[in-house]
């Protein structure tokens, strides 16, 4: 099955399959980043995360982001998949694969891509806390 280079999906992500797509004899460096559901945020214990997206716009923004990253860092490949719906602790909410001739570009590209995702890709996180209660996360703030 053809794996899309960018995707927003309501099912577990498959970093191994995405890494295989970066197979390229020009790539001396392949970086696989998984952003995983973490059990705390500041001082609160988190039990569960759930993500919502404006799906069609999120895919468009991820496509733009991928194109920009490929050009900016001279990548041989770039794949970005984001999960929505409930993401249990330890599971990946986002997987980014970057490949380049040398390691610096692919490492830097992942950091840059994650920064831009947190700036302009329309996806929102909701946290449920162990002590009870839930809140939306907006940028760095909780509501």
């Amino acid at each position, binding site marked *: 099955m053809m794996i899309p280079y960018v995707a927003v999906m309501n099912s577990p992500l498959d970093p191994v399959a995405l890494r295989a797509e970066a197979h390229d004899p020009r790539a001396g460096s392949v970086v696989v980043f998984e952003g995983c559901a973490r059990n705390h945020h500041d001082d609160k214990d988190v039990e569960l995360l759930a993500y919502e997206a404006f799906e069609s716009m999120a895919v468009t923004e991820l496509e733009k982001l991928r194109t920009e990253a490929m050009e900016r860092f001279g990548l041989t490949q770039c794949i970005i998949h984001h999960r929505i719906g409930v993401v249990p602790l330890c599971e990946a909410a986002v997987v980014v694969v970057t490949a380049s001739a040398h390691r610096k570009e692919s490492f830097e590209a992942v950091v840059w891509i994650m920064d831009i995702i947190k700036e302009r890709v329309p*996806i929102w996180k909701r946290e449920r806390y162990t002590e009870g209660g839930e809140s*939306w996360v907006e940028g760095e*703030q909780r509501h």
Partner: protein
Amino acid sequence: MLTVLCFARYRELLGFDRAEFPLGAEGTLGELLADPRFASLPKDALLAVNRTFVDRQQPLKDGDEVALMPPVSGG
């Protein structure tokens, strides 16, 4: 007609997720958002028309899809 979509916390804040609004005399998104129904919309809201980020000066036309979005928190 305009379609207005609200996401995440804004659904509860504004009380709808999708609504149709007649294209009134308002020429820009800012003028549409001056309607009292949008009074609770936070100043830092992200705005899009037809899935492209815009600001309040964006002119509106019949059939446009307006999205009202909180600051994002993916990743």
